[in-house]
């Protein structure tokens, strides 16, 4: 037990003194996940909005698949992207394996269904109320999608925060496609896995505390956004 207390104190020390290794890992994690979520948001909003508004044969099946992909295990996403990017894979010519770009791609694969499915649901709910009025005003389908996306912005922010929470906390995808290379593709989660396996509990704990703090901050932001939105009736 005293080992853990020592490790804990060392961990706090690492955080407070902004240990350079820790900071480097933290910055890379944020870069990868933020960039991935930004891309996934653009894709997710478009897919979700389109699925909600445009009617086409097979729409129900696509929506069901999208929802199911929300539960895609990160390792599976990582494996899939690894097979694509490996030198002998279809996109091998891009030489992207073991780079932060590969990690971003893997996280985009992971997060887009989350944002897409939540966006679709938000737009469906809004459409129930707005459909007749918008058609009465002469809105085209694409205009309706844009209107719904803006009007549902608070729910979309929630979806984005949920997506980010998933990205920053996963280890399976980034481990497989990134290779956990020191100073290049080592993120908080892969570093925690590595340092724990080396018995370096102090550094692992420090990273864990930072990760937990980020997760809590994201959840706090989520609650704040929802409360703010309700106060102004989503204005």
């Amino acid at each position: 037990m005293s080992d853990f207390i020592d490790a804990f104190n060392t961990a706090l020390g690492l955080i407070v003194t902004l240990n350079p290794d820790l900071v480097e890992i933290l910055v890379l994690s944020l870069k990868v996940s933020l960039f991935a979520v930004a891309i996934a948001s653009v894709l997710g909003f478009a897919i979700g909005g389109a699925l909600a508004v445009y009617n086409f044969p097979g729409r129900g099946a696509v929506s069901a698949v999208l929802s199911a992909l929300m539960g895609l295990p990160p390792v599976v996403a990582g494996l899939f992207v690894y097979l694509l990017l490996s030198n002998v894979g279809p996109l091998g010519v891009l030489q992207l394996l073991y780079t932060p770009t590969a990690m971003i791609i893997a996280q985009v694969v992971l997060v887009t269904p989350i944002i897409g499915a939540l966006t679709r649901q938000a737009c469906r709910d809004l459409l129930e109320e707005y459909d007749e009025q918008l058609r009465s005003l002469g809105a085209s389908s694409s205009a309706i999608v844009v209107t719904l996306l803006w009007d549902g912005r608070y729910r979309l922010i929630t979806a984005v925060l949920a997506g980010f929470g998933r990205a920053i906390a996963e280890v399976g995808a980034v481990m497989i496609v990134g290779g956990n290379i020191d100073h290049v593709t080592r993120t908080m989660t892969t570093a925690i896995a590595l340092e724990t396996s080396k018995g370096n509990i102090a550094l692992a704990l420090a990273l864990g505390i930072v990760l937990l703090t980020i997760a809590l901050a994201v959840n706090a932001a989520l609650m704040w956004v929802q409360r703010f939105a309700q106060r102004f009736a989503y204005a």
Partner: protein
Amino acid sequence: MTTLWRRRNALGLILGALLIVAAPAGIEAEDNFIIVQSTTSTQNSGLFDHILPKFTEKTGIEVRIVAVGTGQALKNARNGDGDVVLVHAKPDEEKFVADGWGVKRHDVMYNDFVIVGPAADPAEIAGLKDADEAFKKIADAKAPFASRGDDSGTHKAELKLWEDAGVDAKSASGDWYLETGSGMGATLNTAVGKHAYTLTDRGTWLSFANKSDFKVLVEGDPKLFNQYGVILVNPKKHANVKAKEGQAFVDWLISKDGQAAIASYTIDGQQLFFPNAPRGS
């Protein structure tokens, strides 16, 4: 209207800022680097942190280590997902070259394996000079044993010892024989947690920080000798292999400088790896 525009602009600014911050992550600069497929035990020992900066200083080439099990390292190299492979499984390495995937195999260094276990030592193997005898005693006592179980060099060495001891350990998998399917560090964690014996390379053991009451119980048997080899991935098989830089790394490892760097790596005054590239390389 103005509120709407202000909000739209704010959102645009935030998105822009995010992209600017994150962009460098996406930009792959024309870095001078090679990818070396190596093993977790080698990485966990800390050897690379010690010797690689010396190589980079001399040549300006950055070395990126992907640490996986030996089996996976060789498979990755076969796919061309690496420029150099540095593992410790000589028969597999020679097959790798014979099959045309590697250019030439060079001896680099050796370290040794040791059998570690709880201070209580239920199988009473402490001090034995014969590794297979120790393994046989563990099997007879049905004492818990943690295996890498991951097709790595360490795992292959362990399997050879079971074979020499005449024991079919696999049949007891899940019983007293625990296959973790993990790297050396994770396996050590499991061994300590389960009071199980395990075979580990000395390097990883020395730098492992969670030893609890475990000790080195068996060492010194020549059968525990662990030879490392380095091979340049064949550029004729995969055009993307950085042959020039990869060869520079291979050459350096077996050169006087590289060998000296390896020898100079110690933990608590103990040397972990013993360079043995043929003289005149």
